[in-house]
């Protein structure tokens, strides 16, 4: 049986988050973007709202609203601002997710309550300068020396890793070789501020300018043996599972951003007149908006289905890759058309579509490029696109 109605709880949640996003984020987003400023105040407000720890159980301070609600929340924030949605999406699925799913009780008790209130942020350190799409090429190592791991290497583009409230990074490191000769990869929790761990904020970004992105350096950085996340050698599996979930978040950001750009373009097309009538009444513009509305409807169904699959504990990775691919594509198309409908004004910072136009660009690159999503999807079809 099919049921397309959201539950009462989900409708209330959408309404409340929409209000919150419009009033608390929408009023400062353009300025934060312009100044490239990461707002801790906003993180705290989002923490109070319960926007961190959305799939964490109440015992660890989460709100446990489920995946469909999580997607709705990210969508509503992205409808107003991409940078802030990035803080939330990375905070939940990349930062909190691995600790919640793979951490032991002591690790969860230590980190989750503070992460769920937004007092601290956790980050997910996978990408390296020479290991992007090819994450298995990473070089960062962790060597066990008595009761401590000694970590050396570097990471790049790590969201939420280099702010004043960044508390811990989940670092993917090579911890040895497996019997079959392949690298043994493990995840280790490295608190910010540990000697030998330097986190440097990255600036001059085209997009997500008020999200915190960091470059990380590890030089003989020592952490206790107990900071290993889950089992030694499980790192690669943990990273892949985390990225499956991360795709849902990026998909939701594409969907929400596309919705925001669409609404702005629709409104503008009804207010702006040329040749004596609202420009929305010219077929060229009306058809763009009709296409956008259709794409949004299709994207939302795909996105919610992926989230629903995860909520039902069914295999979802394949559909999540489709949702990430499709939602970021439609955001690209709709942001492009939204600027076109705004004419010259769409290129000016006074108009939100200018920011949407820049912010959409990340979504086809971060957490697995569109090309990598297609590899995942093709594999699900029984094909094996050679990529090595």
């Amino acid at each position: 049986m099919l049921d397309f109605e959201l539950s009462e709880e989900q409708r209330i949640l959408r309404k409340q988050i929409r209000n919150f996003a419009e009033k608390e984020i929408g009023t400062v987003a353009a300025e934060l973007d312009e100044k490239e400023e990461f707002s801790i105040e906003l993180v705290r407000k989002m923490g109070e709202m319960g926007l961190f720890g959305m799939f964490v159980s109440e015992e660890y301070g989460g709100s446990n609203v489920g995946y469909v609600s999580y997607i709705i929340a990210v969508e509503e924030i992205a409808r107003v601002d991409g940078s802030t949605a990035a803080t939330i999406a990375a905070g939940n699925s990349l930062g909190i997710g691995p600790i919640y799913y793979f951490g032991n009780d002591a690790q969860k008790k230590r980190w989750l309550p503070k992460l769920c209130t937004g007092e601290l942020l956790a980050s997910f350190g996978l990408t390296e300068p020479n290991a992007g799409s090819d994450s298995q090429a990473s070089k960062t190592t962790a060597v066990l020396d008595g009761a401590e791991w000694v970590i050396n290497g570097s990471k790049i583009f790590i969201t939420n890793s280099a702010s004043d409230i960044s508390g811990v990074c989940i670092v993917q490191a090579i911890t040895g070789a497996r019997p079959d000769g392949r690298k043994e990869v493990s995840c280790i929790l490295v608190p910010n501020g540990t000697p030998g761990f330097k986190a440097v904020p990255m600036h001059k970004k085209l997009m997500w300018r008020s999200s915190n992105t960091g470059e990380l350096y590890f030089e003989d950085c020592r952490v206790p043996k107990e900071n290993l996340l889950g089992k030694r050698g499980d790192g690669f599996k943990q990273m892949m599972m985390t990225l499956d979930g991360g795709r849902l978040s990026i998909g939701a950001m594409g969907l929400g951003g596309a919705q925001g750009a669409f609404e702005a373009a629709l409104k503008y097309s009804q207010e702006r007149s040329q040749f004596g009538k609202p420009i929305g009444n010219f077929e060229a513009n009306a058809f763009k908006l009709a296409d956008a509305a259709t794409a949004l409807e299709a994207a939302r169904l795909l996105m919610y289905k992926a989230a629903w699959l995860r909520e039902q504990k069914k295999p979802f990775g394949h559909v999540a890759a489709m949702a990430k691919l499709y939602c970021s594509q439609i955001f690209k198309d709709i942001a492009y058309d939204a600027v076109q409908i705004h004419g010259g004004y769409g290129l000016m910072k006074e108009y939100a579509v200018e920011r949407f136009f820049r912010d959409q660009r990340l979504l086809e690159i971060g957490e697995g490029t569109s090309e990598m999503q297609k590899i995942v999807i093709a594999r699900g079809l029984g094909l094996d696109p050679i990529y090595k």
Partner: protein
Amino acid sequence: MNIVVLCKQVPDTESKIKLLGDNSNYDQEGIKWVLNVYDEYAVEEALKTREAGKAAKVTVLGLGPKRCEEALRTALAMGADDAIHVEDPALDGADAFAVAKALAGALKGVDYGVILCGKVAVDDDMGAVPQMLAELLGIAQVTVVSKVEIEGDTVKAYRDVEGGAKEIVQAKMPVLLAATKGLNEPRYASLPGIMKAKRKPLVKKTAADVGSSAAENKTKVAGWSLPAARLAGKVFKEGELADRVAQVVKLLREEAKAL
């Protein structure tokens, strides 16, 4: 002391209102429903009073079809303790009096010191239920309240009066206070709040339980009409500025009859 807050579900002000074919009502299909904004002020004030230790419990009371549960759950998610929902087809089309009578009936046996509500619901803009309810209950009422002070069983309420003046009214509990803008800044329901609200009690009452129905109506809505569609604006570009101003003034007087 317990507080009761009246909560009405109304169309979102962004909803496009269309009339039914026979103009007997507006079309309720496709409308987004929300908690009346003035009732949000009332809920917030009740929660703040409870948080200040001056009230023990906040009960929200609403009347309307099944969908109104969502407005009540929203108030519960903001932090109210429990809810009463008067839901009965016999109350469809109830006017202000029949609604006030039903709410009075629903409050039988409920212990309260203060009833908070919005000064008006933004759907029909009637602004009559608070006054009628207070009369039916035989309690004090203060309307258009933008500030409340509670000391023991005495309530001091500041009323907004035309021209920016405040009238300060004092009353002994029980008292009904109808909130206006400026009373407070309503909180958002947090995600944990929304989850907790699912487990809070929501009691249903029928028309028979509350002793009222649309048969009690004292007024009848004869029909609805929408404002005339807005005509396209006129731009005066030609000629000297002074002439153009004169033209505008002339049209404002003769055509728009605005002067």
